[in-house]
């Protein structure tokens, strides 16, 4: 059955994109355009009737320096000299200026990450020759269609960073590197043009696999033998090898290098778990939506049950990696590593700990029961919460490095979610209208139809 993009959803996605753009514009316009303006903004924010804010500010200051003792060398101790004040003002200015950029980047990366996670899940299902999922392949292919515009947008944002349109990545600032011994040591890897070349290779590779696999998948529908299916199997297996390497390096490049003095060996896996669970959740939500509209008559409770089991299992896997990373660093408490979590625990207490509740405790308790995994609205509700939790996860990875304690959740953040959410829905559902929602000829199709748990 062919899907027709419902008008309401289409208009909804356009409105979301429009409002999102407007909000993002407000975010960019309200960012300070000079150091003086930034100073003024901070001053007015502080005199906003809070009595003891002066005190709070001074403590803020000191911890700032400890937390970021990478960025500006240890001139922390020389109290509040003139030069430090100036450096501080510049620092605050950069943070305020970064805020709309970071909000844009977080949302762009988040939605891109969903489709990349789905692509990995899709490739795994093909390589593992899963018998339950072929009925859902078209839905997954629809979601991975977003990887093309989403990947290009992320690439453009990275390119703008390289061109010094923003200050997201400190190591791209030649002045900073000049005074930073550690960053000089990392220059071999962290240099702008190598960075952008890597990004081009990663995004190019992912998009290439997506297009090849989609083409083979569609060709298989009208073929008289299984050669396309076998080719797809080989491409998927090869892609998984490429994906594991590129995804890991991507997470160092695009996220870990926001804190260029910090490193963690677990980071690639951690980002992977986040994108994987968000991707699977999105598959579940869109499948339930399409089914509720009557477009996927052959998808039954057991398929949903399997997806919900994946949501449950990978949520716990994400927590395992999050905790392993956190606990190892917390336990050893090595100053150069622990600053990462110190900034987050001091300035981001609510999003940092709230994300754990949303991404772990909630799905753990809600999706544990086998019967609940088959209740559609239950899976949708949980899915929305998991997706928001993983948005927060990306937020927590990016924001502390770029805006520090000047974070908020206002126009630019909501605008980013609305814009990219709308674009995501538009691209995904447009792709879904292009082909039949049920593959016609797949060796495992009949098994998938009969799938029953």
């Amino acid at each position, binding site marked *: 059955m062919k899907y027709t993009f419902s008008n309401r959803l289409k208009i909804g996605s356009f409105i979301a994109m429009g409002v999102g753009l407007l909000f993002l514009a407000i975010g960019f316009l309200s960012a300070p355009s000079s150091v003086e303006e930034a100073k003024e903004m901070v001053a007015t924010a502080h005199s906003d009737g809070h009595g003891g804010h002066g005190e709070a500010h001074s403590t803020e200051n000191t911890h700032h320096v400890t937390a970021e003792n990478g960025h500006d060398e240890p001139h922390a101790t020389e109290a509040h000299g003139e030069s430090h004040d100036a450096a501080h003002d510049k620092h605050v200015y950069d943070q305020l200026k970064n805020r709309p950029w970071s909000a844009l980047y977080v949302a762009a990366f988040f939605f891109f990450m969903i489709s990349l996670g789905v692509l990995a899940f899709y490739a795994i299902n093909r390589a593992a020759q899963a018998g339950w999922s072929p009925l859902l392949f078209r839905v997954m292919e629809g979601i991975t269609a977003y990887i093309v515009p989403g990947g290009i947008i992320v690439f453009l944002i990275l390119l703008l960073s390289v061109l010094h349109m923003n200050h997201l990545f400190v190591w791209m600032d030649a002045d900073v590197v000049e005074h930073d011994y550690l960053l000089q040591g990392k220059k071999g890897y962290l240099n702008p043009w190598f960075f952008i070349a890597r990004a081009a290779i990663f995004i190019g590779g992912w998009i290439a696999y997506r297009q090849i696999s989609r083409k083979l998948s569609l060709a298989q529908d009208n073929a008289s033998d299984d050669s396309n299916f076998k080719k797809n199997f080989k491409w998927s297996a090869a892609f998984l090898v490429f994906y594991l390497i590129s995804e890991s390096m991507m997470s160092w490049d695009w996220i870990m290098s926001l804190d260029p003095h910090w490193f963690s060996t677990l980071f690639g896996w951690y980002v992977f778990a986040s994108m994987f669970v968000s991707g699977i959740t999105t598959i579940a939500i869109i499948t339930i939506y399409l089914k509720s509209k009557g477009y996927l008559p052959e998808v039954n409770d057991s398929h949903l049950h399997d997806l919900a089991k994946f949501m449950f299992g990978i949520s716990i896997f994400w927590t395992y990696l999050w*905790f392993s990373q*956190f*606990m190892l660093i*917390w336990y050893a*408490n090595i100053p150069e590593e622990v600053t990462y979590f110190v900034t987050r625990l001091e300035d981001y207490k609510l999003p940092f700990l709230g994300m754990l509740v949303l991404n772990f405790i909630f799905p753990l308790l809600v999706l544990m029961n086998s019967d609940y995994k088959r209740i559609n609205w239950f899976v949708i509700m949980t899915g929305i919460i998991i997706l928001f939790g993983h948005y927060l996860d990306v937020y927590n990875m990016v924001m502390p490095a770029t805006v520090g304690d000047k974070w908020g959740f206002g126009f630019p953040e909501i605008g980013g979610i609305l814009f990219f959410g709308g674009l995501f829905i538009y691209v995904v559902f447009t792709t879904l209208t292009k082909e039949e929602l049920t593959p016609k000829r797949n060796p495992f199709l009949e098994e998938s139809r009969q799938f029953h748990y």
Partner: protein
Amino acid sequence: MASNKVIQALYNDDDILMKAVKEVRAAHHHIEEVYTPFPVHGLDKAMGLADTRIAITAFMYGCVGLTVAILMMNYIMIEDWPQDIGGKPSFSYMQNLPAFVPIMFELTVFFAAHLMVITFYLRSRMWPFKNAENPDKRTTDDHFLMEIGLHDNEDELKQLLLDTGAVEVTITEKED
């Protein structure tokens, strides 16, 4: 007076057994027991057995394990002797929580797994030196046996069972 007589029908194929179970249930006879050499998928549904609640017990046992872990470590590490070990903050449980999580996790799993297994043994009455209860040795290899209580309807039931494809039907007196 409930009689101790039972009728036992032997089958040699699980598909035939499943069909037989459905037919016997449709004829409103109460199946006392079915003996199979391996799990037959869907047999419990066909027999109309209630769902197992063992997963619920496991969840509760896990909660017990988690509680034990928290109370134990809170007492030992925080209340009884809050020593400074390598600079770890032993002022409150929350402050040193990450260090306790591995044990909390393991004890949760330990309690959930072991107590659930013991519950299973108790509920299904299994222990070493227990007398085996199979009515026919062939049911451990390649035969399936359905057992139905008799209430003075031997001939009728025997015919029904033979019609469902039983390879052998016997009537025995149960001693217990």
